[in-house]
């Protein structure tokens, strides 16, 4: 069972990594991905909206798919919502396995599916006071679809 959290607060990569491998000696590889807020086009802040209840459910389903597909010893997905400033972390994916290939592939799979399969919406606020909703990109759909 993967650890799934949807929260406003920042997360601690080192603490989450340690928790995933604590007390085990069968983990040969731990892959991690941290998605950060980029300051493109004068972005001042990103506000992430989500669908409470469905978000946790969708993330758990995506993680369960990864666990069915790769022999993972552990999996953590933490996705933030609310107001996030440039440079701050948005999402954390950790996958642990006996071998590196499973950990790395499962991590890439989860990142690709998070973009298209979890009910989050990004609203951008710019330094000049304008705002806009981030549009979904077809390249993200293609990245998720390549996993079949």
């Amino acid at each position, binding site marked *: 069972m993967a650890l799934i959290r949807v929260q406003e607060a920042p997360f601690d990569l080192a603490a989450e990594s340690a928790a995933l491998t604590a007390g085990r000696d069968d983990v040969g590889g731990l892959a991690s991905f941290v998605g950060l807020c980029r300051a493109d086009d004068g972005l001042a802040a990103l506000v992430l909206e989500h*669908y409470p209840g469905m978000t946790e459910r969708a993330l758990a389903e995506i993680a369960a798919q990864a666990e069915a597909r790769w022999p993972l010893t552990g999996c953590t997905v933490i996705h933030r919502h609310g107001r996030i400033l440039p440079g701050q972390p948005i999402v954390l994916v950790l996958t642990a396995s006996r071998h590196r290939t499973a950990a790395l592939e499962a991590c890439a799979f989860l990142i690709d599916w998070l*973009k298209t399969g979890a009910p989050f*919406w990004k609203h951008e606020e710019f330094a000049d006071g304008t705002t806009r*909703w981030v*549009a979904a990109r077809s390249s*993200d759909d293609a990245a998720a679809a390549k996993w079949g």
Partner: protein
Amino acid sequence: MQVLYFAWVRQRIGLGAERVDPPAEVADVAGLMQWLAGRSPGHASAFAEAGQIRCAVNQAFCGPEHPVRAGDEVAFFPPVTGG
């Protein structure tokens, strides 16, 4: 039936959630969208871009042909942009 709106769909409609009681002939998501569009100018403006709106019934993504019935939680939103 509980209907939820997110992102620009919520902004245009001016509501995050509302309880509605559509007539019996509203049997699927497409029919519900059409019926909701008649509730206010904000609804009409949001649902005018039907091709840009995605849906979930009872917290599972679905298409416009998915049936809806009394007691369902139905959500409308733009394509998701998480990660």
